[in-house]
């Protein structure tokens, strides 16, 4: 009975945070970026207003588009929400005992349907975006999985809650956690199409990756996709935060929760700084960057194999 109660409480906490944190995080990134650039910038609550506005607005849908286009935002949202209830990105256990492989594949599902919806409109831009997205995820997915596999092999389980619970800290655990966090960070920046892979603020159709794919989405349809992307970002940053926390000794759940929130903000800050201070990489050099991510994850694997 207490177990059911605990899961119910966790579910409520997670659902509340899923509703609020993602958009807030986007708001924080934008505000921080504006301040760094010496602008006043919008309030951190602006993304909420944007989404509310989009939800009220009408939709325009291409006559070419078929049900794939209309259904894709729903599937991507559903898959991402399911993933969000499976990863302990808030520092406390997730309500559903998440499996690392299911998590990765749910997020792949979320990505695939967006690519399909882009191709459904017969838009050349959407297709270029989808094609680039595929090329990037070719590296980012194995890199992510390699890093998480190192942790799974270290912990001897694929259950994310158990994997990400800090145990006794040794030099090896810290190094593995550090390497994995670095590898994962690069991989998620690629996966989320953020700097230096892609500039989310650019609106030149030919250079975008993610934005090009949702070029034909509008109104409610766009609102769902925008929110899902924010949730995905939030999940990933929270996950990297949890991985980084493995390098430190265990703390009480409340402290872990607060630390996770702080790390989310820190992640947002790092994203803001990198978006202000970096230039976008040339398309051909993206594999070069991502091979660093794969290499870091592989080194973590090697270390686990040798020591874990």
């Amino acid at each position, binding site marked *: 009975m207490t177990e059911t109660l605990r899961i119910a409480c966790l579910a409520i906490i997670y659902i509340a945070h899923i509703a609020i944190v993602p958009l807030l995080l986007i708001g924080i990134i934008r505000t921080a970026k504006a301040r760094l650039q010496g602008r006043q910038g919008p309030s951190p609550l602006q993304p909420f207003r944007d989404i509310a506005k989009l939800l009220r607005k009408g939709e325009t849908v291409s006559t070419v588009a078929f049900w794939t286009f209309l259904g894709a935002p729903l599937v991507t949202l559903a898959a991402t929400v399911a993933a969000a209830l499976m990863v302990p990105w808030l520092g406390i256990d997730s309500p559903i005992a998440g499996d690392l492989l299911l998590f990765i594949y749910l997020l792949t599902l979320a990505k695939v349907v967006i690519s399909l919806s882009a191709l459904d409109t017969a838009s050349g831009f959407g297709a270029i975006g989808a094609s680039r997205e595929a090329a990037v995820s070719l590296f980012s997915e194995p890199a992510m999985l390699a890093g998480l596999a190192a942790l799974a092999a270290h912990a001897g389980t694929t259950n994310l809650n158990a994997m990400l619970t800090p145990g006794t800290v040794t*030099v090896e655990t810290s190094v593995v956690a550090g390497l994995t966090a670095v590898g994962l960070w690069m991989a998620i920046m690629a996966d989320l199409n953020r700097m230096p892979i892609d500039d989310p603020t650019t609106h030149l159709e030919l250079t975008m990756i993610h934005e090009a794919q949702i070029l034909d989405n509008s109104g409610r349809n766009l609102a769902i996709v925008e929110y899902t992307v924010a949730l995905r970002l939030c999940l990933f940053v929270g996950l990297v935060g949890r991985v980084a926390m493995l390098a430190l000794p265990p703390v009480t759940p409340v402290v872990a929760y607060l630390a996770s929130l702080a790390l989310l903000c820190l992640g947002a800050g790092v994203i803001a700084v990198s978006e202000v201070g970096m230039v976008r990489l040339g398309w051909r050099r993206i594999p070069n960057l991502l091979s660093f991510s794969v290499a870091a994850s*592989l080194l973590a694997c*090697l270390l686990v194999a*040798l020591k874990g």
Partner: protein
Amino acid sequence: MVLAPTIEAVSAALVVLSLWMIGISQYVTSVRLFAVQSITLGALAAYIGMSKGEPMMIVVGIAVAIFKGGAVPSYLAFAGRKIGCRNDSSLSIAPPLQIFLAGSVVAFLSLSHPFRGELPATAIPCLDILLIGMLLMVTRRLALSQIIGFLVIENGIFLYTISQTYGMPVLVELGVLMDVLAITMLAGLLVYRISSTFEHVDVTKMKELKG
């Protein structure tokens, strides 16, 4: 912290740094990474000296940090600026893919440990760094990057001496250090002369004599 795990962890970090260097094509970045590697190495030597109570090791460590971590990199950076080399597009394989090449060497050495019985496990990182340094020399086009490769090999040897025997006689150590400094100076000078004679420092194109 105990001595042995520290040496092990720092050696691993040094291997990671060398892997990073092989994945980088910007000349300036690899010089900086080399500086970081040398300073770490010097600090390790000083730390070993402290915990073993050997003052001369501390001196050697500080000297390595100053010369190889400070003087040599700034001289190399200066030479690079003078000649104007920024990016070293390496031979056939792109640098990031060379990480995997070097990484598989590292993985092979540490997983199968071919010198079991002859070399202790702690010597493997030194061998890694040595081989990566050689790989750097083999794969890079610019003569200046090859000097870095040579210096990385030297770092590997130094790591071996301090981690296995806790240091050679200080005179030998300092002598080697001076040699390295002199060689780097000389090589830099030569590269500068090459650059003014050939108009480039691309080693692959240096096949004929020119005066």
